[in-house]
C-alpha cells in the first residue's frame, strides 16, 4: 500500500535526479566527471556543500527510521512517514553518486549523524504524532533553506561543465521534495505538538550546528 502511493508521487514527473537513478543515463560527462576549471574557493564550496548534503540525507533517513520504529503501526502517519523515508532513500542514493563523481571527502561524522538522527526521530515519535511531525517540520525548514542557499552559491560558478547545471537542478528537486515533507508535517498538525516553539527551535538549532560541523569535518 505505501509503495503504491510512492510510485504515484515519483514517476509522474521527469526528474533531474533520474540521470543518476536510471541505468541508461550513467555514462555521460554530466553524471560521470567533475569540473576541473573551478577556483580553489569554488572547489571548497562544492566539496563542503556535497559533504553536508550527503550527511543531511543520512541523518534524515535515520530520523524517519527512528520515527517509523515507534509509529510503524499508526494508521494515520505510518504510511506518510514511510513515503517520506522512501524519498529520502532516493536522495541519499543520488548524493552517494554525487560524492563519488565529484571526488568529495565524506563527513567523518556519518556514524554520529546516524545515531543522532535515529534518536531524534524515535524520541519525538515517543512524544506523539504531532511532535514527530514538528520534528519533521523543523528539520525540513532548515534543510530547505540550506538547499536554497546552495543553489544561490552554485549560480556564481563560471564553468561550462555540464555537471553543474545538473547538480543545480537536482538540488532544486530535492529542495522541493523537502518542502513537500514540510507541508505534509504542517497538514498533519505539527503545530499542535507540545511546546512546539521550543521543540522547533531546539531541533532547528541542532540542525544548523550539525550543518556547520559537517561542512568542516
Amino acid at each position, binding site marked *: 500500500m505505501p509503495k503504491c502511493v510512492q510510485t504515484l508521487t515519483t514517476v509522474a514527473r521527469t526528474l533531474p535526479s533520474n540521470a543518476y537513478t536510471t541505468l541508461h543515463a550513467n555514462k555521460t*560527462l554530466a553524471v*560521470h566527471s567533475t569540473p*576541473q576549471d573551478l577556483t580553489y574557493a569554488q572547489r571548497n564550496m562544492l566539496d563542503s556543500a556535497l559533504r553536508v548534503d550527503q550527511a543531511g540525507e543520512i541523518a534524515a533517513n535515520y530520523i524517519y527510521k527512528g520515527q517509523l520504529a515507534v509509529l510503524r503501526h499508526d494508521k494515520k502517519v505510518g504510511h506518510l512517514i514511510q513515503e517520506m523515508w522512501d524519498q529520502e532513500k532516493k536522495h541519499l542514493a543520488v548524493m552517494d553518486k554525487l560524492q*563519488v563523481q565529484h571526488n568529495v*571527502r565524506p563527513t*567523518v561524522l*556519518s*556514524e554520529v549523524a546516524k545515531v543522532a538522527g535515529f534518536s531524534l526521530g524515535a524520541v519525538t515519535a515517543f512524544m506523539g504524532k504531532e511532535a514527530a511531525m514538528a520534528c519533521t517540520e523543523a528539520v525540513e525548514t532548515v534543510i530547505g533553506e540550506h538547499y536554497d542557499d546552495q543553489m544561490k552559491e552554485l549560480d556564481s560558478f563560471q564553468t561550462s561543465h555540464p555537471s553543474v547545471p545538473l547538480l543545480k537542478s537536482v538540488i532544486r528537486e530535492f529542495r522541493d521534495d523537502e518542502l513537500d515533507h514540510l507541508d505534509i508535517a504542517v497538514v498533519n498538525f505539527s503545530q499542535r505538538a507540545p511546546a512546539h516553539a521550543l521543540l522547533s527551535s531546539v531541533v532547528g538549532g541542532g540542525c544548523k550546528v550539525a550543518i556547520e560541523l559537517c561542512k568542516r569535518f
Partner: protein
Amino acid sequence: MSTASSTRLLKLALPLVRTHGFTREALSRSVLALPAGEVHTEPLSDTAVSALFGNGDTARRTLIDAWMKDGLRHMALVPGVERHAQSSISLDSATATAKKASIRDVLRARLEYNEPVLPHLPEAFALLASPRSGIPPLDPTQAIKHTARVADEACYITGDKSLQLDWYTKRISLAAIYAASELHQLTSPHTAYAFLDSLLETSSTLKSTLSEVGLYSDYVFKSWKGIIKSSGILL
C-alpha cells in the same frame, strides 16, 4: 601573468629534474627549453628564480610540488582508467579499453614515475620533512599529504565507490601501502613492484577475513536472538 609564466616554466623544468635534481638550477635552466623565438640564451638569474618561485628552499619546494602533481596526472594516463581527474576527456578512452585499470596498475605507474629521479628523491623528501620554522624537528605532514593524494587519486581514477567510513579506511590503507612501497623503492628499486603486489595481496586477504568474521558474528548474533526469542524470555 607571473603565475602563468611560472606554471609554464615549472612544466619545462620537470624533465630537467632527472639531470639537475630538485634544485634552483633546474628551475633557472627551464628558460633554455622554451620554444624558438622565446628561448633564452642564458639560464635565469637567481633573483628571477626567487621572484618567480620563491626564496631559497621555497623554490625547490615549488618544484617538488609541481613534480608530484605531474605524478598524479601520470597515474591517470594508465590505459583503462575509469576517470581522468585532470582532464575532461574520460568516457571514450575508458570505455574503448576492454580491460579496466586496477588500483595495482595505477600505483605501479606512480612508482614507475619515480624511477628516473630516484637518486634525487631522498633529498626531496628530506626537504619536505624539514619544517620551515625549525620546530618541530621533523614535519611529517607533507609526506602524509603526498601519500594521501596518491591514494585518493588512485581510488578516484579507478572508479572506487567507497562511501562513508569505508572511504577513509580504503584510502588510509592504500596510503600506507604506497608509502611503504615508495620507501622500499628508495633502497631497492627492482623489488619495489613485487613488494607493492604483496602488500596489496595481504591487504585484500585481511579485508576478506575481516568481512567473513563480521558475517560470522552476525550469524551468531542472529542465532542467539532467535534462541532467546523462542525460549520465551523476551515476550
